[in-house]
């Protein structure tokens, strides 16, 4: 069956956008882009945020299924945590699309930047600029599925480059990643005072990168570089101004939103989707192109 049913009175399609991470800068950007796309297509968009709580997200997803929404877009969410709900949406004929999420059986499709790919891009850049050797601090948050993928790629590359030493890995507190990363970095700088004892900071996304760069800047140390992933505007701004933050990967969030919207339009028109896992290409940002 295609679109499940009760569109609103004026005939417009209702789409429900669900995420647990609306307060994350990038997720927010993506949701905004999705809303804009929906408007352009003449759909009504309803955004639901559960503030980091995935259990809640499952409940809210059930609610929109019960209220017979026309489509569901899950943003920045690991679909493995919503298997049952995705199945029941499918049973009711409600398409579930992912935006920066992941694809599992039962979903229509997912558009994302390839987390592994992005991590590879920026990590390779970093390792190259270090001459494949140095001392690396890792600030990450493995509880986030996307960030986890990036960190796993790093783990792999560290194995391949034995001269890049991991000084330590710290998990950043969420919420409050900037402040938390900043504090951790301040302490680590004091613990490693010798020049060269830390040569770079690898972070799982831009917010900890910003915190770490602020700490390095305040300490006056010139020999440490930071990389992030996301390309959020504060980070890009810092790269431009020449802070310790030297590179990030700009995810094409509007692009992802556009892909999702296109595929959804296909679904509404009863056409096939172009693929289940579609990528919006991400690009490396450094001082040269910031």
């Amino acid at each position, binding site marked *: 069956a295609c679109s499940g049913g009760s569109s609103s009175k004026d005939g417009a399609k209702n789409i429900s956008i669900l995420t647990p991470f609306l307060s994350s800068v990038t997720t927010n950007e993506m949701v905004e882009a999705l809303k804009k796309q929906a408007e352009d297509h003449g759909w009504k968009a309803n955004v639901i945020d559960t503030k980091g709580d995935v259990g809640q997200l499952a409940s809210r997803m059930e609610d929109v299924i019960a209220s017979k929404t026309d489509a569901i877009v899950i943003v920045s969410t690991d679909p*493995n945590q919503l298997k049952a709900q995705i199945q029941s949406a499918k049973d009711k004929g409600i398409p579930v699309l992912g935006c920066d999420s992941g694809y599992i059986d039962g979903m229509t499709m997912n558009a994302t930047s390839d987390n592994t790919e992005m991590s590879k891009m920026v990590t390779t850049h970093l390792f190259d600029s270090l001459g494949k050797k140095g001392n690396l601090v890792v600030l990450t948050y493995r509880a986030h599925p996307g960030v986890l993928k990036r960190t796993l790629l790093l783990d792999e590359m560290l194995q391949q480059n034995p001269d890049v030493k991991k000084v330590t890995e710290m998990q950043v507190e969420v919420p409050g990643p900037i402040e938390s990363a900043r504090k951790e970095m301040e302490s680590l700088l004091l613990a490693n005072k010798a020049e060269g004892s830390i040569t770079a900071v690898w972070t799982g996304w831009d917010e900890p990168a910003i915190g770490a760069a602020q700490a390095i800047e305040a300490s006056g140390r010139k020999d440490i570089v930071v990389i992030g992933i996301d390309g959020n505007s504060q980070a890009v701004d810092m790269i431009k101004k020449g802070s310790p933050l030297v590179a990030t990967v700009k995810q094409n969030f509007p692009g992802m939103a556009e892909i999702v919207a296109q595929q959804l339009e296909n679904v509404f028109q009863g056409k096939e989707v172009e693929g289940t896992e579609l990528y919006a290409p991400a690009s490396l940002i450094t001082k040269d192109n910031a």
Partner: protein
Amino acid sequence: METTKITKTSSSVQWSKLFRSYGTVIAGILIIIMFSVLNPGSFATLDNAINISRQISFLVIIGIGATIVMSVSEFDLSIGAMASLGGVIAAKIIASGGPLWIAFVVPVLVALIIGFINGWIVTQFRVLSFITTLAMSTVLGGFTFWLTGGATIFENIPDSFRYIGQKSLGSIPMLSIVMLLVTILFWYVMTQTAFGRRLYAIGGNESASRIAGLRVKWNKNAAFALGAALAALTGVLMASRLGSAHPTAGNGLFLQAYAAAYLGMTSFKEGVPNIWGTFVGAAIIGVLANGLTIMEVPTFMQDVITGVIVIAAVIMQRLGRNAQ
């Protein structure tokens, strides 16, 4: 002992008594009526009722855990972390091919022990439970992280494990049935058995209870152990429902569990944590979230409305009281 002032009966007093005892229940009913009128097609359906009953099951069960600890006038702030850990342990066991019943029993046993340790620290050294369980929560969080490496466990989870979380008996979800059984069981334990009354006695006046000869430490430890066990059970059920276990899955439940329990304290037995009250509290929270989502109220407005309605509900109940 605080002396409250009393009055004689009259019809206005009857009303106010009704409000005082059932104020929150009435508020809950009003909320349901409101959503039904505004949204008959989606909200006031059997499907949605079933849906809500399943959604609140976690909150009810963990809330009952919180309530039991509150009945002895203590707090367990580690229930959220305990739920996360419980889910992770269960998922680990089942993913590595362990039998189903082991996946349910081990987390609960672990929780009984951890709860007992919480209780022991609190009663043996007379440390405030607030700081003890907050610290324990940190410990459990670290432990969960160590078990999972921070990642969600979702591979190799067999369908059998998802049975309770995802299947229904006829049209009634298994989760709703478990929730009802837990509620009735603990209502019974807390109100009809000597053990339950002892817990309330200790919560009502610890030194009087000691002087009356109750084994205060033992009973308190038992309350902490039961509370933790219910939290772990919640975590296991969540994992079963989601078919995966996230290392922080239960954390978000912790404040909500106390919200439910405190809302519940305004129902039935005023000022006393009680099982059905917690059930009603959890139901109000669940209905609000469901109804507002169905009405497509934007998230931030949902927050504002939820907060305001909760405050209004408790004030309403108090007005019943003050009218006296």
